[in-house]
Each structure stands twice: as structure tokens, then as C-alpha cells.
């Protein structure tokens, strides 16, 4: 009997070491989030990685490395070992707008990464102070073109989502409001609610509670479909504005050179996480848009990054926006 037990133990031991040799992951995975803890990207990273950890059987540890519009953290992640134990949550800024904003950027979003997949999109909403004279987007655009020198646009600092999408908005509607910079979305919203500044464009998760509370008003949401969080807010297209559809997407990347089977494992875990009811519910509560099955693949993400870099570079360069 004793021998049998020993033999079994040995076999079990062998099986375990065998699994370890080829079975990624065998230790916790670090996910670098290039923004401060508590922000929209951080929250999405934590929600999505929670379920992924369970699928992979190893904890995904979030490390917040903030700075320089997210490029500090992504630079560090891009230069880390490509073994699948360091991954990152990139977003519209770090993998779309950054090459135009930071001329000395140490990575190329289209070449230096192994894309894993799109995690969630957070739509952009055009919001204004509640005392603003216009009642709808048409009236707002009209006012903007007539009183360009009077209108103040708030943004959360050069390189932030509200800054890039704001510049994009101005270029689409050909307006030149005065830009007022804040350190983060919170203070900017505070002054918007106090009627100190006139309008801004920002991610739905930041502005939705204030819209629902009647502290600010929303003119349009920059997505093809309305959001269930803000069912009364028309899309830009519905409100009569073509060409302004933009979302602060968040996506997981690994450093270039990460083995394909590891990328596949991570990508599968991400897909499973996005199909999980709890993950879905929490992302939807934030106003997030869950990517469809075809949008979630590494290949689709690579295409998205390429198209985003191509879209943001001319817009931001024309506005003379650089961060160095």
C-alpha cells in the first residue's frame, strides 16, 4: 500500500513539474496601468483582470505607473521582458495620440507591442455647463461659431483624453474656443458645474453621474449608438454632427516578442472575461462599450492601433499640440 501511495505521489509530482515547464502562467502576472489608481483606465483594468486571474489561475497584479500622459508606464512595460509576466493596459492616448504629442516617444505603438485584445471602449460625451444658452448640439455649434472668442473649453491637461478629443472636436466643427487646462478631470468638472468654464469633451464614466444629477448638460455622445447609461443623450450623428465619433478605448498589450502561445492564452482569458456576466455588468454600469467577438482579437487590435495613430497624428499636429 505504501509503495502505491509513493508511486502515485511520484507520478503526481512528475505531472506537476511537466505542467510547470510548459504551462504559462506559473507565477503572478504584472499588469502595468499607466495612470493613477482610481481613474477610468485603472478601474477597467481591475474589472477585466479580476476574471482573467481566475481563468489563468494566477493573480494579475495591477501596478500603476503614472506620468507623461501614460507614456512613462507604457515605455517601461514595452522595455520589460517579453515572457508574458508583464503586460499593460494601453489606451487611446498611449497607443493613438502619443506619437503626435510626444516627439521623443521611446516606443512605436504600431511596432513595439504584441497586441492581446480590446478590453472596453468608453464613449466620449460633449458636455456643457448647465447655464449654457444652447439647448441642443445644433444650437451649441451655432453659438460656438458666432461667439468663438467668448467660449472656454476645459480639459484635463495636455495628453489627457479630454484634451485630445477636445482638439479633435474643435477641428471637426472648426471652432477655436479658449482652452483652459486642469490637473485631472475632477477639478475641470468642478469648474464646469460652477459655471466657470463652458464646455468639455470627456469619457462617459467621468461625466454621467453629473449629467444624471442635473449639474451639467450633455449635448451628444460620440458613438454610433446611444448609451444605456444616458438613454436621453443623442448620438453625434442623430444631433446632426458628422465625423465626430470617438471613444477612449482601453486595450491589453504585451511587449513585442512575447511567445504566440502566451499571447493566445492571455487573449483567450480576456475573451472569457468579457463574456462573464459580472464583468459585463460592471463595465456596462460605467457606460463602457464591450467589444464584439471580432473586435476582441489581437489582429483587430493591431488594426485599431494603426488606424488610431493615423487618425490622431494629423489632427494633433495641426493644432500644434505637443507635450515636449
Amino acid at each position, binding site marked *: 500500500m505504501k509503495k502505491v501511495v509513493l508511486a502515485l505521489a511520484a507520478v503526481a509530482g512528475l505531472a506537476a513539474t511537466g505542467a510547470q515547464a510548459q504551462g504559462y502562467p506559473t507565477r503572478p502576472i504584472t499588469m502595468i496601468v499607466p495612470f493613477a489608481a482610481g481613474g477610468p483606465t485603472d478601474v477597467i483594468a481591475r474589472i477585466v483582470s479580476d476574471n482573467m486571474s481566475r481563468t489563468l489561475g494566477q493573480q494579475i497584479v495591477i501596478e*500603476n505607473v503614472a506620468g507623461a500622459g501614460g507614456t*512613462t508606464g507604457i515605455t517601461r512595460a514595452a522595455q520589460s521582458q517579453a515572457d508574458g509576466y508583464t503586460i499593460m493596459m494601453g489606451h487611446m492616448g498611449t497607443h493613438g495620440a502619443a506619437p503626435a504629442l510626444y516627439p521623443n516617444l521611446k516606443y512605436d505603438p504600431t511596432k513595439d507591442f504584441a497586441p492581446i485584445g480590446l478590453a472596453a471602449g468608453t464613449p466620449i460625451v460633449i458636455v456643457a455647463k448647465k447655464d449654457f444658452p444652447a439647448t441642443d448640439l445644433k444650437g451649441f455649434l451655432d453659438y460656438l461659431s458666432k461667439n468663438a472668442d467668448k467660449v*472656454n473649453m476645459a480639459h484635463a491637461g495636455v495628453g489627457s483624453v479630454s484634451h485630445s478629443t477636445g482638439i479633435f472636436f474643435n477641428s471637426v466643427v472648426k471652432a477655436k474656443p*479658449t482652452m483652459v487646462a486642469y490637473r485631472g478631470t475632477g477639478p475641470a468638472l468642478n469648474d464646469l458645474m460652477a459655471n466657470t468654464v463652458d464646455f468639455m469633451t470627456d469619457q462617459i464614466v467621468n461625466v454621467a453621474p453629473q449629467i444624471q444629477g442635473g449639474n451639467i448638460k450633455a449635448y451628444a455622445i460620440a458613438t454610433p449608438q446611444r448609451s444605456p447609461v444616458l438613454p436621453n443623450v443623442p448620438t453625434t450623428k442623430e444631433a446632426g454632427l458628422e465625423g465626430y465619433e470617438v471613444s477612449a478605448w482601453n486595450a491589453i498589450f504585451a511587449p513585442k516578442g512575447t511567445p504566440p502561445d502566451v499571447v493566445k492564452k492571455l487573449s483567450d482569458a480576456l475573451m472569457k472575461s468579457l463574456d462573464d456576466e459580472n464583468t459585463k455588468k460592471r463595465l456596462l*454600469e460605467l457606460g463602457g462599450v464591450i467589444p464584439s467577438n471580432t473586435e476582441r482579437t489581437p489582429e483587430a487590435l493591431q488594426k485599431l492601433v494603426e488606424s488610431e495613430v493615423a487618425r490622431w497624428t494629423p489632427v494633433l499636429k495641426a493644432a500644434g499640440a505637443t507635450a515636449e
Partner: protein
Amino acid sequence: MGDFFSNLSLGFGVALTLQNLGLAFLGCLVGTLIGVLPGVGPIATIAMLLPITFGLDPTGALIMLAGIYYGAQYGGSTTAILVNIPGEATSVVTALDGHQMARQGRAGVALGIAAIGSFFAGTVATLVIAALGAPLTKLALIFGPTEYFSLMVMGLVFAVVLARGSILKAIAMILVGVLLSTVGTDLETGEERMTFGLPFLADGIDFAVLAMGIFGIAEIMRNLDHTETRDVVRQAIGRLLPNRDDFKQSYKPVLRGTFIGAALGILPGNGAVLGPFASYTLEKKLAKDSSRFGRGAIEGVAGPESANNAGAQTSFIPLLTLGIPPNAVMALMVGAMTIHGIIPGPQVMTKNPTLFWGMIASMWVGNLMLLIINLPLVGMWVRLLKVPYRLLFPAILMFCCIGIYSINSLPTDVMFIGFFGFIGYMLIKFGFEPAPMLLGFVLGRLMEENLRRALIISRGSLETFIERPVSAGLLAVAAILLVIALLPSIRKGRDEVFTE
């Protein structure tokens, strides 16, 4: 009024469940511990512990995280008093007189009065939030860039009053602090300023790095060049808790500090940092003998500590009633709420009343627990000072290095505390005081950004600072304070002229 009591009883019903009591205790304990460790702040801790709270219900999770926040505020004063290392801007003032008290063998009294003052302030602030939270929210909205700039100007005048010795030297130090705060990426244009192309300076100098170097490391160097004074601390430990005389001296500063701190804590954009400085200035001006300040005056600990804690508490108002975080820790709380499916905003109070009132009630519970945790610990901390300095200082240095590294995981930060430590040491040797510089550093960035914002909005018209009543009032107060601060030295200067 009936509402007030029914709300509070709803809140206490939530806060006093066994689970939530336990979570509040755990939060306060963890908070105290990380507050005591130099450098490791509430931000890093809360970010680290966020995943653990996933399994809890949102109210319990937030109660624990809030406990960490004010526990850390309290623990931070312990380090400031014992080893002269202010972990956060708000405990810079505590270090001034608190550490002097410790050097005189009154560490226990300083720690005790800090704990008791904080508890009182926390109790009052909790009541203020419960009774006036919603109406006070409007105050936060009155403060735009213009008002904020004027408030910061007033704050800089506090820095002048803060100084012990030469006013000229104090002003010089404030300006150095303001200058240091301009290092980093310009907010409006995105240009890098005074970074010498060094990437780790692109986001400016971290407050904790500057404070730890200029206070903590410099203090160690100073202690090492004359060990005898340190032995005095070892021999005379003195009473562990404040006696009646101490209370008599402290109760008024505690009351005033609570009021000032609570009022400034409500302001958006981290007005709470001004609380302790304002309280210290007031106490120094009201004292019969202001020369005691900076040499171990108990009022200089009691007032600012109360202001600090009251501000920490009331800074929850903008978060809970508006969903607008006034500082980085509160921004993290927003994230924590969001992860738990509660998106902070004006509707939290009506949509999640148990969460809202439960959190408020738990603040008071948390303050009580901090008192219970900290009073017995006072003896232990004081005994820590008995450890021979040659053993103590390497430990402090090591904790400083670990703590500072944990903030941004940057080796350059660790080297920077050494650099600033050396500068701090030189400053002490040349008779320059570091506290006004730190205040200048904290206020400089806020002041610059709000000045530019106000001017952009007014299209360059400086009149905006006088046209707006709140701003004009603040500037007037600043001018009066400055005159009061400068008069004695002007008069002295004149006397000297006459005697010649």
C-alpha cells in the same frame, strides 16, 4: 432636525454591525501602521488593497479604505513628532513643534495631545458633515480659479508668519519652494520646464521626496554631527500623557484648529493642506509669547493636528455629495466606489443612503478606534526613542528608502532624498528654515495654475481678482496678515536706527 437624527441612526445602524466595526478597525490599524512608515502613503496602500475588497460589500470596503486614509493621517504625525519626517504636507507643521517636544522628552505628551485633539476634531467634523454636508457643497462651487489664487496668496503669507527667525530668509525660502514647484511639465502648453531633459523630472518633484530629504535625512545628518543632544532625548522620557496644564493650554487651539480645518477641508482642489498652516499661524499670533513656537509649544501641535484631522474628514464632503475628489486619495476612493458599482455623484446620497450615512457614521467610529489604538501605542513609540541612535538611524534610513521607492518605483527618487537631505542639512547650518520652503512648494503649483487659469478665463484682466468679492476679501486678509507679520520687524529695525 428629525431628519438629522434618523439619518445618523441609519448610519450608525450600518457602521455598528460586527463586520463593519471589524473593517473599520482593520482599516485604522493598517492606516496607522503605514502612516508610521515614512514614505509609504495611503495612496499606495489603498491601491494595493483594492483587489482584496472585491469580495466585500461596497459599504464595508469603503469603510475600510476610509479608515486607512485617516489612520494614515494620524500615523503620519507620529513619524513627524518622533523622527521629524513629515510623510504628508499636512504633517509638516506638526514636525515643527512636535519634534522639538520630543527632543525635550515630551514625546508622549505631544503624541497624546495629537491623538486627543484629532479625536475631538474628528467628532466635530463628522457632525458637520452629517448636518451640513449637502448645503456646504455650494461653498465648493463658489471657489473658482480666481478665489483659489487669492486663497493661495493668503497661504503664502502664513508661510512668512511660520518662520522663527529672519523674515527675509523666510521669504527667500518661500520663493525657492515656489520655484521648485515649477519643475516639470507645464500644464497649459505641455512644455518641460527646468527638467534638464531628465525624464524622471518630467512630472515634477514629488512632495514626499522633498519633505523626506529636507526634513528627515537632514535631521539624521544633524543628529550625527552632534550625538550628545540625542542622548538627552533618551534619558528624559517624561510623562506619557498630557496632564491638566497641557489640556488647559491646548483646548482653545484644538477648538480653533477644528473650525479652521473643517472649513478649509470642504474646498475643492485640496484646500485641506492649508488647514494646519493656518491654525499654526493663528496660534502663534494669539500666543502671549510667540517665541516659544518652534521650540516645543504644545499649542503648535494641538491646533494643527486638530485642523489636519478635521480637514481630512470634511474633504469627504465634495466626494460624497458631488462625486468630485478634492485630492489624490479621494480620487482613489472614487475609483474604489466605481469598482464596487457605485458611481460617485450627486445621487449617491439619495440612491445609496445606507452607504452614505454608514460611511459618515463609520468616520466617527474610526476616530474612536484611532484613539483606542493610539493611546496605548504612545508608550511603545516613546520607548522606541530609547533605542540607541546608532541603531535607530540606519533603520530610519532604510525605511525611508523603501518607502520612497514604493511610491513610484523609481531608483532616482531614493537618490533624490539623499540630495535633498544634503541641501536640508546645509540650510539648517546656514540658519534657513525648511518649513516655509515646503509650504511654498505645496502652494506654488496650485497658485501658478490657478493664476493662469483665472487670467485665461478673464482674458488677461487682473481686475478679476478684485471684482470677485470672495477673492477680494481673501486678498485683503492676506494684506492685513502681512502687515501684522512685518510690523514688529519694521519697528525693530527703526528702533535700531534710533539707538544708533
